[in-house]
């Protein structure tokens, strides 16, 4: 594995991890923009814009774009989070330059009014789809409850109302400011030659204009509110807990991810033994998400309405025990084994490496090899985990529950 990187004069950085023994290659544009960068009146514009980027350029129609990617046999798509919009494609090595060329074209889209109006319907369908998935709905809304006025609480999808009211002009303005080369990273991994890819980027992206794009970072410990909402068509109780955690720039993010495994992995965790094994809840899991200057530990628990108070007491007990006694050497070692094997498996495919490579540059301006990540995980001690528990107090959380009305 070799790491390469270069920055064009307009600020676009290109990073590559070359692995000549891979069967495939992956490429992606990482744009440092997400729902946290939106003003309230354009809630959902980042995600809507991500859809619109596939609608073509002044020279390409949407169908031509899709046909061109499909002709390469590309596995391509995009995703939008609170902080990033990522466009990616995994292809056979011989098609990498062609796929990269397509993305460079699409990063300067036409954003036509007609396409905008049709795509609005698709976005509203996506919002409706997630409303029928209470496990996503509860997490999304708990996040808003947790972050309150902090920008990380902005919903990615927006609302039916904000999408309906949005104009194409508002989207174009947002695009011009956020999709500036100094706010983007072009990352590539796998079986590839770095220099031709850079030459291509220079010729296609070299004239993009930088902007004075900004993001203000602040840590926020969360509202710690506790709410329950009723929804007539639900049969189970869907519970989300969010507590504060270390951000992406914090070296203790590896400690935090191990803590999340110890507390809430799908097997063998404290949640598993206390809630799932005795059939009190059918699902209970915790995940760590590190973001720009802030982080969260999420828990999602699903159980029957009759078990809600039992679940609440058990969770309280789990966090009390954690604070009082900390974690054991044995459970830390098991968590490490799980994290390390997951890392190995994920990184065997170039597409698996791409997100690590891209995000490390977006957040840290740093290349980290898989071996360095492995070392960071191995180096974590019980004291590190226990110190983190004392500092962040994961038992002090924001809670949102969604379930059937209590009268039923």
């Amino acid at each position: 594995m070799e790491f390469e990187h270069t920055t064009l004069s307009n600020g676009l950085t290109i990073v590559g991890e070359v692995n000549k023994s891979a069967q495939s290659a992956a490429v992606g544009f990482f744009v440092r923009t997400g729902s946290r960068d939106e003003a309230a009146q354009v809630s959902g514009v980042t995600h809507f814009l991500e859809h619109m980027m596939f609608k073509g350029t002044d020279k390409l129609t949407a169908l031509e774009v899709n046909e061109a990617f499909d002709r390469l046999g590309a596995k391509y798509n995009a995703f939008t989070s609170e902080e990033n919009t990522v466009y990616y494609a995994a292809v056979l090595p011989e098609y990498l330059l062609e796929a990269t060329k397509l993305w460079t074209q699409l990063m300067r889209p036409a954003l036509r009014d007609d396409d905008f109006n049709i795509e609005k319907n698709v976005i509203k369908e996506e919002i409706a789809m997630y409303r029928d998935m209470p496990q996503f709905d509860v997490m999304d809304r708990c996040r808003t409850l947790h972050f309150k006025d902090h920008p990380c609480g902005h919903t990615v999808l927006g609302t039916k109302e904000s999408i309906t009211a949005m104009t194409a002009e508002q989207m174009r303005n947002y695009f011009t400011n956020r999709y500036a080369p100094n706010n983007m990273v072009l990352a590539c991994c796998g079986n590839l030659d770095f220099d031709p890819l850079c030459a291509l980027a220079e010729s296609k992206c070299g004239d993009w204009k930088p902007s004075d794009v900004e993001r203000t970072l602040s840590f926020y410990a969360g509202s710690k509110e506790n709410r329950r909402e009723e929804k007539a068509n639900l049969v189970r109780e869907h519970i989300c807990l969010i507590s504060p955690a270390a951000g992406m720039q914090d070296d203790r993010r590896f400690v935090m991810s191990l803590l999340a495994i110890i507390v809430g992995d799908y097997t063998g965790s404290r949640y598993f033994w206390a809630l799932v094994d005795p059939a009190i809840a059918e699902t209970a899991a915790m995940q760590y998400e590190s973001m720009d200057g802030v982080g969260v530990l999420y828990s999602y628990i699903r159980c029957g309405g009759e078990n809600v108070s039992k679940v609440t007491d058990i969770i309280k007990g789990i966090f009390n025990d954690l604070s009082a006694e900390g974690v054991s050497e044995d459970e830390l070692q098991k968590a490490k084994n799980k994290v390390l094997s997951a890392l190995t498996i994920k990184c065997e495919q170039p597409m698996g490496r791409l997100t690590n490579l891209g995000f490390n540059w977006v957040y840290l301006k740093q290349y980290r090899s898989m071996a360095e990540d492995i070392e960071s995980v191995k180096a974590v001690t019980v004291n590190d985990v226990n110190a983190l528990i004392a500092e962040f107090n994961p038992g002090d959380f924001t809670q949102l529950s969604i379930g059937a009305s209590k009268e039923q």
Partner: protein
Amino acid sequence: MAERLDKHILKNGMVILGESMEHVGSAAFTFLLPSGTSTLPDGCCGAGAVITDWLFRGAGTKSSRELNDALDGLGLHRNSSITSSHISLGAALEASNLANALALYADIILRPSLNAEQFELSNQLAIHNLTALDDNPQQKLMLNLYEQFYPYPLGAPAVGKADELKNLTAERTEAIVKENFYLPQTIFAVAGKYDFGAVCKQLEQLFDAAHSEVDKQITLGQRGRKYTHEQHDGAQVHIGMMTETVTIVSENYYDAMAAVSVLSGGMSSRLFTEVREKRGLCYAVAARYHTLKQFAGISCYAGTTPDKAQETLDVITAEFGRLCEGISEDEMQRAKVGLKSSLIMQSESSSARAAGIASDYYLLGRVRSLEEIKDKLDQTCVDSVAGFLKNNRFEDYTVVTVGPKEVSLGNSEG
């Protein structure tokens, strides 16, 4: 693609398959146990869901806690699934832990504790998971679709039926495990980094258990209803439809795969273009090929708000119909390159390959090499797909909807 296929048959008839992969540090394995939903006795629908949980609650000399600690200690990423024909138990892990993991899985498969108290917990979890399906209309829809489409009991839902789960007992479920975990019909596959000689030697020792012969014949019943609607007061109408096509053994299999790819392969495929891009009817619309040994179908899912549900179904049905009028050379090329590139990328994942070779062996009695699949794809062409579609028109659909509004199947389907 420098894959190498290994094969060995244990004395008891259990088949051991391996596909070594260069440049990986992981190994993935899967056991296909002949205990799928269609093999269960009447009245035991859902027993598979109970069994896959119960097996891990202690085995050999280890308690539930000890067993799970041992598995976690190996950094194992477990997966289990239940299909019409099999319970599949597998894992992916760092290659150096493979031998230890196989020893634990031998205990789980041959010597599970199957403790009665633990059964109650496994059974409760299965009942809760079934109940929770009501909060997941999309998944519920697809399970119902397979159940209606395939002749009984081939599409029986792995999650089970509420009354049958409630009536299950530890004794009955244990008897199913004892009878169905029949080693001569079990397939084991490993992919990634492994030493095949060592794996075979170890499995020969671990799985030398004798097993009385079981003669299992499944008597097929009727297919389900043509149209099923389930009222659900959600935001969308979830639409599932399925139509019959050739199975993997057919000489037209690759034509069928190409046809599905034209319909719903990449984003330039017909369904995505007509339903989402041109009309904005849906966010999610996709068709896929699904095969059992005896029957196969092409299923399609779409989710849309109630006032667009009828138009969505009509457009999808029209696209299935239009496919039989032929496809273009350009569509054919995109379908082929898409299928080939999926194949090669899959070859980089040890888990995908372990599952793939085990499934091939069950369905075909042999494992196709990646080269063979590539050659067959190369041989398909516009004419072969057109010929196949002409002789296998999509005319008969099984439709299921879950949501606030029913749809009409039109004059021909009523």
